[in-house]
């Protein structure tokens, strides 16, 4: 297991570890569309996790709304490629609710095709491993900061 891969919800850890190893991605977040992080890999600072999760949740929300306005089903995946890095953001439905995966990869180490290929495997494994019959917990504004702090403490082994 990579020492940089950590999970708030333990059932996400093995699929994420496999995904990181096989697709050679640099950074990964598994999160809910509300921005609650379930697992991360490669991040060194809590503030980066917070920013990336907030931005990924915002992208999921805006592209979802864009699809709704176009009377289309939500976009399955979004990919952006820069000169050196690429990022891949996709959502899928599990028994735990809808989850999003944000992956950032170096173009000289990995590729969109490789990330897409192993993302399919990650989504399948997370769907199979997600707790069955789990009641989706609503994150209330009053609890948000405490939950966020607890998650970050877990993710960074504090």
């Amino acid at each position: 297991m990579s020492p940089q891969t950590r999970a708030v919800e333990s059932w996400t850890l093995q699929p994420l570890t496999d995904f990181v190893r096989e697709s050679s991605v640099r950074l990964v977040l598994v999160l809910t569309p509300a921005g609650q992080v379930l697992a991360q890999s490669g991040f060194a600072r809590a503030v980066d996790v917070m920013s990336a999760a907030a931005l990924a949740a915002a992208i999921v929300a805006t592209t979802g709304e864009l699809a709704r306005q176009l009377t289309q089903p939500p976009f399955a995946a979004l990919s952006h490629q820069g000169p050196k890095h690429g990022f891949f953001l996709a959502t899928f439905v599990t028994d735990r609710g809808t989850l999003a995966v944000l992956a950032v990869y170096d173009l000289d180490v990995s590729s969109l095709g490789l990330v897409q290929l192993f993302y399919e495997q990650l989504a399948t494994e997370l769907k199979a491993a997600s707790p069955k019959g789990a009641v989706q917990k609503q994150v209330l504004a009053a609890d948000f900061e405490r939950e966020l702090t607890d998650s970050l403490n877990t993710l960074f082994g504090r």
Partner: protein
Amino acid sequence: MSKALDMITRVRGVRGAMLVSADDGLVVAEQLMEGIKGPAVAALAASLAGKLRRAMDAAGTGMSVFWHLQAEQGALLVVPSGNEGGILVVAVAEPDVNIGLVRLELLRAAEALA
């Protein structure tokens, strides 16, 4: 593109041919028999091509022109077309395929694409 793939798949023992973006590992065009996972072959072949390119650079041999991976139940044959970040012409074949003939068709397809 489809004509180039036609010529490759006409060779007896070839189970499929693809044009793959070397940068992305995505399928550009394909003619594959059922059961061959095109996106997986494309992604992994492009990844391998990138690593081979670096190995060839390190060895000072220049760009690879053709590679052939022989397995128990088949073979993967690849010709990179153009420069770094170009297109890979890929064939998936039976183990007893005429390698020389497939190689010729792959090189012709790569030349047509360049």
